[in-house]
């Protein structure tokens, strides 16, 4: 989950090359989907718990990774319960939770600049006309933007509450979009000012 940020540390997972982490994540997700068996899922969840332990992360971090998707998980669980049975609903939901936690483990232990370097390495053989640096920077900016947008969302929500507007989506979204677009302009200008490319 990209909403989860890097958590500084010096564990083996923090030190592992981003490309390896991404490859392991890909293998992990593929294995969970290809081998649809509860034993495999149990092993997957165990591995994730081990990964969080190695990285020095707490259960709270694992929960933070899943929390933004809670509503979706509840809907999927209910749909599976209705269409299949309790065992299938639990299996599908737990598998999704394992995937979310695995993806978060990668972002928790990888710096944005390491991702940038990794993306640049992946693009090293791409055609020359492709703006590799810009692509890598744009992707790494996601790490910077998400907490910023989250803070701005909270500020707008607080301001609307202070005005007595509790449940208006428009009152929340309109000022947020304006602020985000303004910030985007200013960040673009700052990037231009700070780099020579």
């Amino acid at each position, binding site marked *: 989950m990209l909403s989860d*940020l*890097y958590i*500084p540390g010096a564990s083996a997972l923090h030190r592992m090359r981003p490309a390896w982490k991404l490859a392991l994540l890909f293998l992990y997700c593929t294995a969970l989907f290809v081998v649809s068996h509860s034993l495999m899922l149990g092993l997957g969840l165990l591995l994730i718990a081990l990964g969080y332990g190695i990285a020095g992360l707490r259960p709270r971090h694992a929960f933070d990774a899943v929390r933004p998707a809670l509503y979706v998980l509840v809907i999927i669980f209910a749909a599976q319960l209705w269409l299949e049975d309790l065992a299938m609903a639990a299996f599908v939901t737990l598998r999704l939770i394992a995937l979310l936690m695995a993806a978060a483990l990668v972002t928790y232990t990888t*710096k*944005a*600049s390491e991702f940038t370097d990794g993306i640049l390495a992946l693009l090293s053989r791409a055609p020359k006309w492709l703006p590799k*640096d810009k692509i890598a*920077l744009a992707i*790494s*900016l996601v*790490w*910077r933007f998400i*907490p*910023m947008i989250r*803070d701005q969302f909270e500020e707008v929500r607080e301001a609307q509450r202070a005005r007595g507007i509790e449940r208006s989506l428009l009152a929340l979204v309109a000022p947020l979009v304006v602020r985000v677009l303004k*910030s985007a302009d*200013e*960040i673009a*200008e*700052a*990037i*231009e*000012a*700070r*780099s*020579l*490319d």
Partner: protein
Amino acid sequence: MIFDRVCVTKGSRRILSEISLSLTEKRIGVIGENGSGKSTFLRLFNGLQKPTSGTIRAEGWGDDLRRHVGFVFQNPDNQIVYPMVEEDLAFGLKSRKLSKAEIQTRIDEVLETLSIAHLRARLTHQLSGGEKQMVALAGVLVTRPDLIVFDEPTTLLDLPNKLRFMDMLAALPQPAVMVSHDLELLMGFDRILHIEGGTVFADGTPSEVIPAYRDRCLARAKG
């Protein structure tokens, strides 16, 4: 730096008209009301804004102003690009094609100079306003600019952080140009430019320009 008959127009609107200046002082303040053109003026220094006509030059710098001029923005949140302090400081250096060892040395040096070495591994969005402003400044200083321009850098700072910023500014070896509404801060500068209506309305020492500007603002406020 020399501005020679510099004009900036946007569409049919003239933002700056015929600005000619020779800037040699170490601390230059820029004041003016909102919409007077002072931010556009500041953006001319490092090429964020190109003049529509006229020239800007500095001896020995060639055409590449950006390599020589650092820019500190009003809101550090919009200046900090990477989520971790150390990564952000490295950002401006990577485009200068420096070696990893050189980048590391410069980062260590600037963190030490600004006494913010403890922030090295911190996430930028978790810093206080004052810490963010210091990190934004460090991101500029690490590129070792010959001149630094500041766009209202103390607007979002509380008093202790503003005082820290003033101490840091006094210790900077580079010349600095600063747009600010903080007239008290600018009283210690060498030269003040009052921009109004896109032109340099007044140019002189703080004691010559600032009281007159204050009186003018008061007169306008009272209608």
